[in-house]
Structures are given as C-alpha cells and as structure tokens.
C-alpha cells in the first residue's frame, strides 16, 4: 500500500517528537508497526471505527511506547484505509502517556479527521510517507 498523511497528522507528530524524552521514538515505532505488512494485514489490523466495510475503513491502531515495557500503552493512530485504491492514510496520532496524553478521541473529532482528509485529497496537499529502511523510520514529504 502507499502511505499518506494529513497536515493534522504532520502537526501532531512534529509536536510529539519535539518532546524527545517522552515521544522521540514515535516515527521509528510507526515504521516498525507498518513495515513489511501485507495489504490484508494493513486492512484488518486495528479497531474498526466504522464497522466491517469491505472497501474502506477508519481504524484506531496501537503503536508501542518509547522505552516503556508496557505493550499496550504508547500511541494511538487514527487511520483511513482504502483497500481498492491500496492507500493508507494516517489522520492523527496521540499518546496514551506523558505530557500530551489523551484518553480517547471522540467521534466528532474523528469525523473532522475524515473531512480534512477529503479536503486535502481534493487540494492535493497530503504528505507522502516513505519508509527509510536504513534508519528504520518513516519520512514525511510534502
């Protein structure tokens, strides 16, 4: 699948990695989460927020935390996957612990994420995500 990110995701992730001590590893954990995954795995892996849609799904995906051993804390990614187009969109990211921790994302905000995606798709302002296999991280390009 091809990976893209919205401006909201770009802003959120930059805000997080600026806090190096708590969230400095976010990009490399996102890399590990999606690297070498098959399209089927990418389409199925995560909590489906709009049910079992056969083509497109908004999902919540768990990503490991920085340094901590806990397998279930860390980050949550809100994503949108289009199976037929083979496109995977990262809409937002929030941490479960640390200074920017957030317990959950409300439905209204998730809807806003989708609206922003729609607008950015139309305006062609999405970020392209590439996987840097040497540095084991993801790179966002405008």
């Amino acid at each position, binding site marked *: 699948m091809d990976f893209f990110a919205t401006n909201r995701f770009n802003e959120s992730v930059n805000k997080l990695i600026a806090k190096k001590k708590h969230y400095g590893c976010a990009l490399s954990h996102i890399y590990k989460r999606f690297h070498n995954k098959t399209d089927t795995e990418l389409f*199925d892996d995560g909590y*489906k*927020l709009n049910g079992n849609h056969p083509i497109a799904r*908004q999902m919540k995906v768990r990503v490991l935390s920085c340094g901590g051993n806990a397998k*279930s804390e860390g980050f949550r990614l809100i994503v949108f996957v289009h199976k037929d187009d083979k496109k995977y969109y990262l809409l937002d990211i929030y941490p479960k612990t640390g200074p920017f921790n957030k317990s*959950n994302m409300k*439905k209204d905000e998730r809807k806003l994420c989708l609206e922003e995606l729609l607008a950015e*798709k139309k305006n062609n302002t999405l970020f392209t995500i590439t996987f840097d296999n040497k540095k084991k991280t993801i790179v966002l390009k405008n």
Partner: protein
Amino acid sequence: MTTVLDIEKKILDCKTKGEVYLTEEEKTNLILDSINAITKNINNVNSCYLMLFPLLDELSSCEVNNDKEFNALKEIILELSKFTTRTSILFSNLSKSNIIKNGCKSALNDLRANIRTLREYLEDVEETFLLEDDEADIDTVLSELI
C-alpha cells in the same frame, strides 16, 4: 521419664530450624521468591489482557444481527468491566507495598497500561454498538472518500 536435657535438645533443635530463616541471606531469598511469584501472577493477568485486545479488534468488524447477539455483546461489556474493576483493585492493593511496588515495577506498569487500554476498548465498543448516534454525517464523508 523425660529429662530437662531431653527437652533442652528438642527445644534447641526447634530453635535452630527456625534460625535458618532468620539469616540475612535467607530473608533476602524469601523476599525475592515472593517478588518473583507475584510478578509471575501479574504477568499471567497481563497475558490475558494482551490476548483480549486482538479479540476486541475482531469484534469491531462484527455486526449485531439479533437479540441473542446483542445480549452476548452486553455480556462481554459487563464481564470485561468487572474484570477491569477487579484488576484495578489488585493493582491498587499491590501498589500499597513498597517492596512489591518496586520489585514488580515493570509488571505493574504493564498492568496499569493494560487496564487503561481495556477501558478505552470498552468505550469504543459501547460507542460502536450501543450508543444511538446519528451516523448519517460520517457516512456522507466516508462515501465521498470511497
């Protein structure tokens, strides 16, 4: 007839057996054994949590088609809510002791994170299946994206 000397021997044997457990090394070993046993138990609970999460991801792709399934869903929410409450009490009780809190730090941190994550899942499941909400708006955006 039992003599004082006989009793003295028995008493001293008894005392010697007890004294083994009073050496510093033995005390440390006892504490470490207990910490290991408690850590193992906490990690068993953590393993259960980690098995639950993918199942709840799977549940999110299901549809509730009849009353039987609806009741099953309510039962899942009820039982998992009880499970988080019981685990929270366990976490709270274990954290009260400094020895356990420090000795089982990593396992307890995992446990706290798992409790929070399960609560988050339960919120999501309730929102997905139980809350009456106007889906029309979000469906419009989704259909435009598809």
